[in-house]
């Protein structure tokens, strides 16, 4: 499965076909992770907060290709995307493993992914550099086998997403 996860509504219905799921996070109700570790130590693989995030993280786990669309703030994902990514930790275990010589969480049944991150907003080079380093860290903790960041202005977001979807079809 392929997943488009966006923090803003996108008019891309013409690009959506079988096997592609599009989620507009901005219309979902997703609370902050409360750091209770319930999804690791009480109900493993399942978040104790039963809001819309529970519809999303199973799809993240299942997808072998993802497009994450997010405004950038302080060199990271802005609130809507960041909140969702924090709520996706049920797809990992509490347990730690060595990956490329570093400690990281063991993943549950999570597909390795090709990730494209459409990072939009008015970003300078310094901010982009922080975001590149973040994506490199994400790759290890979010099962990216490859990743690419496309920095765009806000008004170019939709066309950047459509371009990335077209590449899926190649």
């Amino acid at each position: 499965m392929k997943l488009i996860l966006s923090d803003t509504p996108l008019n891309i219905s013409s690009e959506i076909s079988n096997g592609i799921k599009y989620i507009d996070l901005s219309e979902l109700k997703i609370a902050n992770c409360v750091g209770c570790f319930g999804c690791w130590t009480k109900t493993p693989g399942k978040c104790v907060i039963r809001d819309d995030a529970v519809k999303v993280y199973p799809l993240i786990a299942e997808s072998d290709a993802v497009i994450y669309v997010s405004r950038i703030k302080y060199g990271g994902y802005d609130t809507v995307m960041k909140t969702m990514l924090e709520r996706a930790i049920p797809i990992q275990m509490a347990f730690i493993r060595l990956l490329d010589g570093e400690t990281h969480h063991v993943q549950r049944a999570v597909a390795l992914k090709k990730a494209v991150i459409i990072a939009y907003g008015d970003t300078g080079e310094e901010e982009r550099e922080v975001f590149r380093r973040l994506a490199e860290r994400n790759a290890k903790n979010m099962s990216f086998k490859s990743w690419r960041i496309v920095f765009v202005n806000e008004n170019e977001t939709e066309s950047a997403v459509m371009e990335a979807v077209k590449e899926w079809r190649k």
Partner: protein
Amino acid sequence: MAEIIILNASPRAPKSNSRLYADIFIKNCKEKTEYYNISKTNHKELCGKINGFTDILFVFPLYADGIPATLLGFLKNLEKNPPLKKPTVSVIVNCGFFEPEQNDTAVDMVKLFCIQNGFPFGSVLKIGGGEAILGTPFRSFAERKIRTLARRVSDGRHCVLKTTMPLPKRIFIKASDSYWIEYGRKNGATEEEMRTMSIEKF
């Protein structure tokens, strides 16, 4: 003389490790300190309180490789409601991973906030093994660095510090397994259940 406002940006602030790190800082700091938890509803109130302090110390855990959404939300509010005189911003950030360097990106994000909004950036303490270190014989490693941090923030001779458990990584992983198995046992989950590969299907 420094006056330091300590803001805990952990999502589980009152019961967090960040709270314990902040307590050690307060105990070892000779200057005036005031401590607050950042909650969803007190951002404006805290932005107002910052006026008059020479320093802010943010204490928080690493979440999804960056600053927690709690801190992100607060920084966005602080950007909109800045104090008249901008204090120097220092951080204590902890992660459950062995390597304190895994906190670097979160530190960079706070630095970027400071650059974009004209706040001087001060000192950093990056803690690895931060979920458990205070309950181990290696507690003193964290305490010693926090003491140094308290001194440096107080006298303005800023620095970057890091600490973790002095263990080979494979032993760290074994110790971490035991920690989480015990955590699960208290919550009624067995190791086998915690190691399930299944993720709920909605």
